């Protein structure tokens, strides 16, 4: 579905990504994990065309997308749910969702848009209950649901999720993660960026671990969840010496 090869990206003169390669198979959930500033969001932004990549290739199925504009990338079938939801706070829930289908309105797909709206309300009954409510007054979890729902309105093949659990209570996080799992069951492929490595690896098939703009590890989620390095990165603890804990003196 998605194939990234040797991706480099810069913020000004600062290297943000160095030679990142990764792939996502159709109908997979793949996690990108790593500490703050490791380059996780940069990868998503590069894929969705929000920032330019200085080198490398990004393919969605057979289409090379790394020099396309952001809206063309949406048309190819990739939608991003940005960090911090970034919903349109003064608009209603329904209006937010309709904006997600912006490209399709132009194509006069009104009937199918209505069907999709119903689908999203089935997935998130809470959004239907509140479809007239001003989005800014929703709770954090509801806003995240709305942000995901809005992205789904573009009928993406690949959904990019940036920190969906950010600022949410553990129970709500669990809810959101379950929903993401259900989305995959409905046929969407998902690439998810998370600080909460544990939560996202639990629902993922595979994962990549990033450190200062480079991939330092990849593997199945089960392997990564049991990996001492990942546990350390996640807990932010590192051994001070090679011998720590095993030094018999």
């Amino acid at each position, binding site marked *: 579905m998605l194939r990234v*090869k040797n991706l480099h990206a810069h913020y000004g003169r600062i290297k943000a990504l160095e030679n990142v390669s990764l792939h996502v198979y159709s109908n997979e959930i793949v996690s990108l994990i790593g500490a703050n500033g490791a380059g996780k969001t940069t990868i998503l932004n590069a894929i969705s065309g929000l920032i330019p990549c200085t080198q490398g290739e990004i393919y969605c199925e057979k289409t090379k997308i790394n020099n396309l504009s952001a809206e063309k990338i949406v048309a190819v079938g990739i939608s991003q749910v940005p960090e911090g939801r970034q919903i349109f706070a003064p608009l209603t829930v329904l209006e937010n969702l309709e904006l997600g289908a912006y490209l399709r309105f132009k194509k006069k797909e009104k009937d199918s848009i209505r069907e999709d709206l119903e689908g999203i309300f089935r997935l998130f009954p809470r959004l239907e209950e509140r479809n007239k409510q001003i989005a800014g007054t929703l709770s954090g979890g509801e806003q995240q649901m709305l942000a995901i729902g809005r992205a789904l309105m573009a009928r993406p093949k690949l959904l990019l999720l940036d920190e969906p659990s950010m600022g949410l209570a553990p129970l709500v996080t669990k809810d959101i993660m379950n929903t993401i799992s259900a989305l995959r069951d409905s046929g969407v492929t998902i690439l998810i960026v998370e600080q909460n490595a544990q939560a996202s690896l639990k629902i993922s098939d595979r994962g990549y671990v990033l450190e200062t703009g480079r991939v330092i590890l990849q*593997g199945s989620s089960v392997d990564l969840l049991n990996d001492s390095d990942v546990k350390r990165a996640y807990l932010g603890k590192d051994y001070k010496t*090679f011998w720590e804990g095993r030094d018999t003196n």
Partner: protein
Amino acid sequence: MKSFNGNNEKMNRDELEQLQLEQLQSTLNRAYKNVPFYKKQFDLLGIDTSTLSSVQQIKDLPFTTRQDLANNYPYDLFAVPLRDIVRISPSAGTTAKPLVVGYTKGDLKARNTVTARFLAAGGVVDTDIVQICLNPGLSSWGRALKEGAENIGASVMPMTHMSTSKQLMAMKDYRTSVLLTTPSYAMHILEVIKDTNIETSNLALKAILVLGGPLDPDWRNRLERVLDISLTAGYGLSDVTAPGIGFECHEKNGLHISEDYFMLEIIDPGTGDVCLPGKYGEVVLTTLTARAFPLIRFRTGDLASIKDDLCPCGRSFVRISEITGHTGEVLTIAGVKVHPAQIEHILKTVSGKTPPRFLIRLYKENFLDMVEIWLEITETIFSDEVKLVENSLKHLRRQVFQMLGLEVSIRLVEASTIEQHDLPSGGVIDDR
């Protein structure tokens, strides 16, 4: 096709190459960050690992040799803190210093998968009774094979030091269905079966999987015909990695390399250039998933060639020919890699002074590799008292066994006998 995890084995080449590229990039990132040896080497040569954009570019990286491993003995090539290591696996290596390889839990899991693949391709299933017969020098393989077979769910009789007749008794009484051994030991067993008049129809054996030695096509034919079994071969390094890096499928036409765990190159041992398919050269391996002990372009010393035609079995993994020999002076004796300098080192330790001149004679007895060390009679080890001489020879034999896991016999010879052969001390007479 029988396989352990078929999806990866049949992955299309395009996907496989992407996977290898990703794994290679992260392996380089980890090695550069965590292993001072690799950092120093790359910095010295001005190699920026973040510019590697295709698997083919691996050819620009420096090699790692057994000497490098010895120089960094014991722990300097480890890429994770000792706390993460769950297995420390020593082996004799081929220099004066032994080698130590570490494994994390994940590394052992990966090794088990690779080993299980080799076993499954040879026909091992969960209902099998698997018997492992290897000599003590191959004990790291013994462990890996045991774990790999257990991973499949078979009942495993681990490597045990027993006479061949006892092994055969176990094979008959325990209803062993799969034998894991070396080619020469398989032939030796066949001889003993003949000598002891065991009815082959009384054996439940259905497959033999061999490792660690050249497999003569005639041997394969004889074993398959007489014992009514299927014989497949595997390839691995006894000192640094898993026994099933390469494995034959039922087509028995070359060894598939587990390319999702190892990157394979064949290079010209003289120039270091990459060889084209079909051309014989040295096998060079790069680990793609190893956490504790990453190896980048490790020169194995084994000679083989790549077969790049598609295998009818459906696996996409590239195949290599059988190992046809070794570079340099390294000898393979009963599957164990030995450098003559190791024997010299043991002699030096035992005699405490300048070691006497010696030759190594290799020959076959009943298909088994035998080693005879010809020692020049000098005063350094030997005295007039027969008892003392006997003791020091016994000590020497024990030392060789302890260091290399090989049983050797020692023959005392006149200086003239050594000179007749026109070889330097440590020279090898290979009568196999």
